């Protein structure tokens, strides 16, 4: 029997993996993918709780999140392309113009 807790734990694990990806990977594409992972783990939590609480609102929010995530990825990838054109790599450590 798969209970609500299974879903929540899975979501938490996915979220942590996403955070770890953002923190420790240097490839901009991978960082963007990790962000997606975090967003989707949150989506999973919403869906699970919507089902559990028999409420439609969680599912509605998930749709919003997916739209925002799509937009975010579009912008993020555009930035990645520009960074690559400028620097010849998409290693975020090379993009340190704000350094003192």
């Amino acid at each position, binding site marked *: 029997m798969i209970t609500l807790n299974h879903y929540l734990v899975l979501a938490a694990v996915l979220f942590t993996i996403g955070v770890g990806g953002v923190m420790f990977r240097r490839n901009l594409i991978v*960082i963007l993918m990790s962000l997606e992972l975090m967003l989707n783990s949150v989506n999973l939590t919403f869906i699970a709780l919507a089902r559990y609480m028999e409420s439609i609102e969680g599912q509605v929010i998930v749709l919003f999140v997916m739209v925002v995530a799509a937009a975010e990825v579009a912008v993020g990838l555009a930035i990645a392309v520009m960074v690559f054109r400028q620097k010849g790599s998409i290693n975020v*450590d090379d993009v*340190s113009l704000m350094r003192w």
Partner: protein
Amino acid sequence: MTDLVWLVPVLPLLGFLVNGLLARSFSEKTIGWIGTVSVGASFVVALAIFLELLGLPPQARSLQKVVYTWIFSGDLQVPIGFLVDPLSVVMMLVVSGVGCIIHAYSIGYMHGEVGFRRYFAYLNLFVFNMLILVSANNFLLMFVGWEGVGLCSYLLIGYYYEKKSASDAGKKAFVVNRVGDFGFLLGLFLIFLTFGTLNYADVFSAAPDKLTQGGALVTLITLLLFVGATGKSAQIPLFTWLPDAMEGPTPVSALIHAATMVTAGVYMVARCSILFAMAPISLTVVAIIGGATAFFAATIGMTQFDIKRVLAYSTISQLGYMFMACGVGAFASGIFHLMTHAFFKALLFMAAGSVMHAMSGELDMRKMGNLRTKLPYTHWTYLFGTLAIAGLFPFAGFFSKDEILYYSFERSPVFWVIGATAAVITSFYMFRSVFMTFYGESRVSPEAAHHLHESPPIMTVPLMILAFLSLVGGFVGIPIFPGMHVFGEFLGPVFAPAKAIIDHGGHHGHNLNLELLLIGASLTIAVVGLIIARKMYIDDTSLPDRVIKAFPGLHNLIFHKYWVDEVYDVLFVNSIVNFSRFLWKYFDEAVIDGIVNGTAGLVRGWGTVTRWFQTGLVKDYALTFLVGVLVVVGYLVLK
């Protein structure tokens, strides 16, 4: 025509604006004539006003023309208004008339100078300010003109600003004038405090009610005003700037430092004649300062070799006469002398300028001599000016100076003795300058002799006009015969209230025998001066040296102008300079700069610490973000 009185100052202002702003590409001739015509036009307007004034009965000859309310604030109301009365009209005529002649002369004199346009623009601005000064109907507007002429004086003395001595002289004139202006301004404040208004008419009509005859307040007001006059009119103790002002171009010396601006103080004292009449102590001070200045400046004039400096000291001395006249209550005589002096002193300066022009800039009379053959027009006109200033009949100076001496004698023979002594000296040093410059043996250097030439007509014609005026200008004030003193009767109504106070209602009869005696004495005096000068500088040229040897100490004292400049340096200038240096080095550099730089240093230091957080690496920002989120979430959860 009197409604158009505003045109009188505004026309030169237009000339200034055109020459100053638009004339960049105009030729010298155009610029010069714009300047001359604008002043000439204002002379024509002034003349028309004068004629209209003559058509009015004497008591009605005082009109106020308010053009605009300048300041309207509570009790204080200051209009831009003009006063048309005999005194202001005479001043307008003198300023614009002599100014116009000097403008024309300048076209020739300044020919080819760098900054020709600047010169004419400043000169027109000066005439504008001077006309504002003499035609204003309130003290504040007069003060505007008063400061304006001071500014123009500064600008024109420093005309050759690349020369250190010229720019220093300009600064000196400005600073010394500021000292006087300080007193003048305090006087104005006190007038406003007492009367609540600055309009001449209101102040003068209220004066007998609000002030007590001979009271402390009126004495203080008039003394403060007189401090202003000593600055502007170069009287003891503030006369030191005028000789240095000779660094400016010669026509400037003629216009500003002889004919017009320096007489502003005399005009102001005459304008406030009622206030001065109510303060006998101030009148005595004015007379004493005037007499002392007339005497001391004349003695210095005896020993100078620079022809312009001789004339400068002579100007100071003649201004002293004017103040002495005002001080003994003969305001009309002071203004009369102001007018004749404007003619002959402007003439003398411009003739000296013509000599300088011919001598390639040489001013030392020891390097001149026998110039009369080479410069006939200059010689004759200079001679006319000298005869006028020495007071020989029938030249203008005879009438005006004699009148001052007569009234001085009436007041106290002591003043007459001072004035007469100064007159001998004046006659002596003026003929000395004539003989050294135009007679005797030529001491001109060969190079300069090669270039010797008479000035062009544009310069000699103005000289001749002024020479003519120096000859006939005195006849408007013929003494002895009753009713012939046209000038005095014209000005009479302006000074009538003051005269009534001074005479205590009773009128002194004109003592005819005394007057004839004094006229004889002044003529003798003038001739004596002439004879001594002739003896020393033509007949026996070694005599001056022998005289100097006989009184070496005295000569040294006078030759060095009584060391007044040096004393002022020690007493005032050095201490102020040292104090300013202290403020600069220790207050400005240490305290003010310290505060400003300290603020910057503080921000910089804090920035040095905080910039370490700006690594520029995304992961560091992400980590910070994560920590922040954890803290917030942790707080919300554990709350």
